[in-house]
């Protein structure tokens, strides 16, 4: 399969990339890992006039902690997250999601930020990072702004990112030392989308749940924030009753549809089981 022809630019700096984007209006696309964009171009669902390949820009491939945020740069591959010590423990929701993205070879190329801007409604990173309360750092010629993920996702494959903007990093607020999380995913085989994915990110406060971020994959038209489950957890004691109530709430938050991956009832049931299992693990990590 051959994509439609395109002009190719490989700028050496973000400033240069922004100038090129400005010139093309909405006719150019940013190329990072290409594991979603290139398949779309091969199928000719996308036929941009130009590609702006940011892979040669220095400094976008780091995971760093600074000013109360963990920052994952636009060129950080899934495989780098899989290996990163920084994404274990209190950022366990991210570290546990990383090895479950697609397959090992795709993970060598694909990027976290690229997954977010692609905004696949079935994407795993969308849920994991939404649970972690992340925001996207975005630059344009008029400056830098941040977009909370809840505001980024407008619908399937649609974001609030503007054509003249480049997402340079995703930033996750420091949850404190008493925090933990996990991402549980049911997939039929390696590389498949989630039948169900559950992202859990807990912060403790005096031995009780302080705040909880819960998001669901594969059981709605987009990455869903499980608000009833979050409310059931906020301020609650750490015990099986709390976990069960939150699991029931998440199952109600889910909006599953029956399809080839399973019936709606089955998916709701998996949400419940994954919630209880994941909450126990997250609480254990946070209490350690």
């Amino acid at each position, binding site marked *: 399969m051959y994509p439609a022809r395109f002009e190719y630019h490989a700028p050496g700096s973000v400033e240069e990339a922004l100038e090129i984007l400005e010139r093309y209006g909405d006719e150019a696309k940013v190329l990072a890992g290409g594991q979603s964009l290139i398949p779309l171009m091969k199928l000719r669902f996308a036929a941009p006039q*130009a590609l702006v390949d940011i892979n040669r820009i220095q400094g976008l491939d780091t995971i760093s902690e600074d000013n109360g945020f963990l920052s994952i740069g636009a060129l950080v591959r899934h495989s780098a997250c899989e290996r990163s010590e920084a994404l274990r423990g209190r950022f366990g929701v991210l570290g546990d999601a990383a090895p479950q993205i697609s397959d090992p070879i795709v993970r060598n*190329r694909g990027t976290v930020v690229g997954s977010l801007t692609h905004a696949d409604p079935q994407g795993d990173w969308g849920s994991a990072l939404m649970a972690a309360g992340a925001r996207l750092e975005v630059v344009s010629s008029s400056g830098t702004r941040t977009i909370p993920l809840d505001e980024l996702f407008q619908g399937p494959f649609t974001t609030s990112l503007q054509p003249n903007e480049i997402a340079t990093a995703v930033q996750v607020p420091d949850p404190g030392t008493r925090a933990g999380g996990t991402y549980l995913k049911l997939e039929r085989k390696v590389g498949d989308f989630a039948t169900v994915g559950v992202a859990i990110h807990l912060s403790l406060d005096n031995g009780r749940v302080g705040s909880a971020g819960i998001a669901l994959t594969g059981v709605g038209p987009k990455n869903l924030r499980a608000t009833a489950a979050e409310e059931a957890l906020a301020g609650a004691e750490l015990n099986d009753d709390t976990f069960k109530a939150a699991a029931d709430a998440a199952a109600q938050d889910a909006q599953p549809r029956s399809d080839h991956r399973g019936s709606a009832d089955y998916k709701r049931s998996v949400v419940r089981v994954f919630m209880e299992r994941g909450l126990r693990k997250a609480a254990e990590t946070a209490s350690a």
Partner: protein
Amino acid sequence: MTEAAVETGRYTHPVTVTVNGAARSVEIETRLLLVHFLRETLGLTGTHVGCDTTSCGACTVLLDGTPVKSCTMFAVQADGREVTTVEGLAPAGGLSPVQEGFHEEHGLQCGFCTPGMMLTATALLAENPDPSEEEIRWALSGQICRCTGYQNIVKAVQYAAAKGKEG
């Protein structure tokens, strides 16, 4: 800003890619996929096109030592980088340990997935010379074999790992 970056209306790009140790400089269409650059521009047909949809891994090559699916990368992105294909695995006059393992353990039947499997196995052993069976299966999980049931592929990688320890 560089000259190339401001030029519009142009759909080709000069690249220099080091393939199996030899630098190759060519003017190519920007939309040319890496797999077609290897097979058609350079005539290295050991890299196979399987599903052409990033699923099967038959087109896997090493980019600076890391496995990538060459159907899901533009050749122009490999400019200035090193690519290893199955043609680059064998040392002069012999087989690499991974190739020998696939031969000795019957790690293939039809052979279609074999080049990609061997490249991924080579990268795995470079990073982890003594992988467990689970680590081998995990590393190869982005690739599909329709003949072997994977059993002999795993044995082939284990053979190569053991061979590496001897050496």
